Structure formats: structure tokens, C-alpha cells
């Protein structure tokens, strides 16, 4: 089995377990231990920020600085101006393409 399929099957099991815990295990309105709830609430911010940083500033596991930074900056301006998700993503692509064309 390919490395991709091993990843797909294990990741499906892991994400499904996380998705299904609430609906399958928690019958009523019982809640998680507060420490776990806090962890689940706080992990996305650093992990998403790490993904932003890694996908902007690295290539092949090494630091890189290229036009993606311009795209990220443009997306940040779009989001700051409260433009929708799609617009921010398109703005990033356009800004990066323009920076590369110049």
C-alpha cells in the first residue's frame, strides 16, 4: 500500500474518532473536562499560524523568501477590510502573480 493510502486510512480513523466522539459518546448535554476543552480551543491558533508560516516561508523544508509573502500580505489586507474568504484567496493569487510578473 502506498504511503499516501496509509496516511489516508490512519488519518480518516483519527479525524473520524475526533468528529464522532460528541455525537456517538455524549448522549445529553454533558461537557468535556474543562482542561481538554481549553486545549481544543487553543490548539487551532498556533497550528494554523504554523501552517501559514511554513507554507509561506519554506520550500522543501528550508527557509525561503519569495513572492508568496506579497500574496499573504495582500490577503491580510483583504481580511482586515472584512472581505470574504474567497476574495482574500483570489487577492493573494493575483498579488503573487503580479509580483512575479514585475
Amino acid at each position: 500500500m502506498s504511503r499516501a493510502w496509509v496516511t489516508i486510512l490512519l488519518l480518516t480513523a483519527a479525524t473520524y474518532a475526533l468528529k464522532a466522539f460528541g455525537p456517538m459518546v455524549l448522549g445529553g448535554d454533558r461537557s468535556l473536562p474543562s482542561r481538554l476543552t481549553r486545549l481544543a480551543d487553543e490548539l487551532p491558533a498556533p497550528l494554523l499560524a504554523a501552517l501559514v508560516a511554513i507554507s509561506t516561508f519554506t520550500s522543501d523544508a528550508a527557509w525561503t523568501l519569495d513572492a508568496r509573502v506579497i500574496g499573504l500580505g495582500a490577503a491580510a489586507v483583504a481580511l482586515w477590510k472584512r472581505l470574504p474568504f474567497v476574495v482574500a484567496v483570489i487577492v493573494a493569487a493575483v498579488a503573487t502573480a503580479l509580483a512575479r510578473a514585475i
Partner: protein
Amino acid sequence: MTDVPHSDRKPIVRQALSIALAVMPFGLAFGIAAREAGLNIFEAMGFSSLVFTGSAQFAAVSVLSDGGSAVTAVLAGALLNLRSLAFGVALAPVLKGSRWFRATAAQLMIDEAAAVGMAQEKPADRRYGYLAGGLAVFVLWNLSTAAGVLFLGAMGDVVVQAGIDATIPAAFLALLWPRLSDARQRTIALGGAAIALGSVPVLPPGLPIVAAGLAVALPGRRSRR
């Protein structure tokens, strides 16, 4: 508000469809990323239909693409998705039903479905919003993944020149953005980014993203209890 068990559902359907349309570029981007990581169409669709969790899919594929192991890819993807545990707990009260219904509905436990569901006031509307949002995203996410792999992935150079590679960090930023209005979340986000970038030269591919999770240990008042 009236006494009927649910409200007019057109606005809920509109919300579900607009959020599903909004994830389409992200689905295209995932198809491209999968293609660039060397995955075939079946593997890409396996991710989008079985894993069906945008950020976990991107994390796992970027680890695979950097030459990381399957275990590292799974760890990065699963840690990133701990939040679906919280969504599931929040929505469990409105997702009552047979074991089969709950087991199927649980597959839709993603940010967008949870957001549409939790945005409604009445329990019946929450359930409807969750299912509508989840199904709409599931269909368009899979269609756009296929389109990304089949039509855009074959044009690697065009993708780079058109700046489509910058849609991935932009989409992550868009997912992160709402959290940044909170001081505590801002602190741990910056901490996570610093840990990840700082550890790139020393950790195996993929692990810098997992290491970023340590930022939750940064001192500071925890918000949104």
C-alpha cells in the same frame, strides 16, 4: 419567533451554499497540492471524501510532499483537527437519532458545517443547518478537489505563475483570522508560527507544525473559557 418547531429554511440553505462556494478555491488548491505531492486522483479523492477535513488534509499532504513519514503526516493532521472534538460536543445535543444517523452525520463535523449549525437559534434549525452546511461542503469540496487534480494540477508552472500556490497560505490565514481578534489567541498564534519556523532546520518535515502546538503552554490568561 413563532411556535412552529423550525423557521423558514431558505436563509439557512443560502448560508450553507455560500460557505460551500467559499471553500471551492480551497478544494481546487487541495487538488493542486495533492497533484504536486505526487498523489493520483484516487488518493486525492480518498483524502477529500474519507478524511474530509480541509486543514488536516493540507497538513498531511504537505508533510508527504516534504518527504515526511505517514505517521508524522497523520499526527500533524489529527492534532490540527482536535477542534472537531469541541464542535461535536457542542452539537451533540441537536444530533440525536439512531446510531447510524449519528455515525453518518459525524463525518460532516467540519468547521463550516459546525459554524452554520451553531449559528442557528432553534435546535431543529441547528440540526438542519449542520446537515445542510456539511452536505453542501462535502459535494463541492469533492468536486473542486477533482477539478484541481484533473485540470489545474497538470499545469504546475502555470499554477506558480498565476500565484495559485499563494492561495494555500492565504486560506490558512483566512481560517486563522477570526481568532486573531482575541489577544490570547494572537499570542499563541505568533508563538506557534515562531516555533514552527525556528524548528524547520532541526526537526524532520511536518514536526515543526506539531511542535507549534506547544505554544498553548505560553503564559497568559486563557480566553473564551
